[in-house]
């Protein structure tokens, strides 16, 4: 290797050439796979730190080559096919909750990451307004910034930005278009017709006169209220004036800590 191989010091130095303790291939290469999703299949890529890219197959008419090109442009990392899906991915897709998955959101700003962390908590089949996300990240006036952060969501479907809607029953924008947003929500058994008819009647919150608790209409607890006990409200303030407190699960308004 060296010209003066007869020199023992040079030879000993040459022997310092050693492979890293574990191969760097998994540190450098991302893995990709195609898995069944809630509506059609999904392309999913992950680094050694977690899932970092999701694309519905129907948004990549060019097939895997289009997804791989999209990924390389987005992340600037090489890819190899994965032998199996990332741990927990298939159960998470079945349940509609990815809260236990690991994500690699390295390229995102702190604000974007906080927005995605809040959105990750929205349960399957429920929706929240953009203003709710803004309030939950502690920036109640940053409603538009929340919208922009969601457009940049590199892991849609898993981080369910389709569950964030405009107030008044309008679904609003979606990275892959409003029709797909609607299909995803219907696949989660959300009754969009009911949400819309409530919105037309200007009912944005539902309360139960037996518990005195007010919820977003899609909240699991709101859907259990029987018709005779159901009260509709235009705002949380209106509900509060009527003696209702916000639900601690869907948090439609500032929630007092339980005493």
């Amino acid at each position, binding site marked *: *290797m*060296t010209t003066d191989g007869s020199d*023992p*010091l*040079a030879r*000993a*130095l*040459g*022997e*310092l*050439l*050693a*492979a*890293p*303790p*574990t*191969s*760097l*291939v998994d*540190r*450098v*290469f991302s893995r990709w796979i195609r898995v069944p999703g809630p509506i059609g299949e999904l392309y999913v890529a992950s680094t050694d730190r977690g899932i970092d890219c999701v694309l519905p197959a129907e948004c990549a008419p060019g097939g895997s080559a289009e997804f*791989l090109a999209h990924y*390389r442009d987005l992340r*600037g*990392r*090489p*890819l*190899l096919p994965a032998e199996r899906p990332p741990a927990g991915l298939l159960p998470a897709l079945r349940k509609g909750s990815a809260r236990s998955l690991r994500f690699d959101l390295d390229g995102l700003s702190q604000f974007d990451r906080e927005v995605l962390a809040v959105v990750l908590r929205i349960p399957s089949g429920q929706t929240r307004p953009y203003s709710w996300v803004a309030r939950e990240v502690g920036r109640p006036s940053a409603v538009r910034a929340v919208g922009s952060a969601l457009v940049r969501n590199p892991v849609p479907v898993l981080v369910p930005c389709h569950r964030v809607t405009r107030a008044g029953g309008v679904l609003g924008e979606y990275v892959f278009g409003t029709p797909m947003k609607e299909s995803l929500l219907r696949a989660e058994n959300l009754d969009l017709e009911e949400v819309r008819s409530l919105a037309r009647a200007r009912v944005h919150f539902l309360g139960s006169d037996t518990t005195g608790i007010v919820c977003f209409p899609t909240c699991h607890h709101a859907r259990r209220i029987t018709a005779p006990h159901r009260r509709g409200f235009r705002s949380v303030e209106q509900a509060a004036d009527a003696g209702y407190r916000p639900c601690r699960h869907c948090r439609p308004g500032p929630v007092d800590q339980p005493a």
Partner: protein
Amino acid sequence: MEEETDEALLAGLAEDLDAGFHRLVRDHEPLVHSVVLRASGRPEEAEDLAAETFLRAYRALRGYDRARILALRLKPWLLTIALNTWRNAARDASRRPHHVPVATLPERLHEGPGVEELVESGESQRELGALLADLPQAQRTAVVLRHVAGLSMTEVAAVLGCPEGTAKSHVSRGLRRLRLLCADGPPPTALPEPTGRRDRR
């Protein structure tokens, strides 16, 4: 032999970047890892630096056309990126106080030898590695490129961005100093003592 391998690697990169890059990482990870390990003297950072080096190399390759890829001098090119990566990391580290968030502290997940033991397979290598870390930076880098990575003197000069004469003098001064250090401390066992009768000590 080596040149042919590099040519084949470059042809593979020009053909299919990701598949070619997989072979490049497998073939050259010992080279890149050893150089950042010896240049930085920090085993705990060497893996991060080597992985970062390969990612930077990949991002650069994405912007190169076929002719530019085929014309690359693979080892000097990779090691130039490696040394830049290390210098940037060292500069960033000096700008802000060093702290390791608890959450990112490495966990010992695997049974068996730890990182250090795996990196340093023998006592002699450990000692020689430690002596190398005592050299002034310019000499250390030149010696590592010349004798650990096995670059030609022309390539060492290209990677260091200095005239060949300067590179030569860094290497020879580095070696001279290493010999002195060897004579001072306990000599690495792999190195025969000047008398060649080390078992009589």
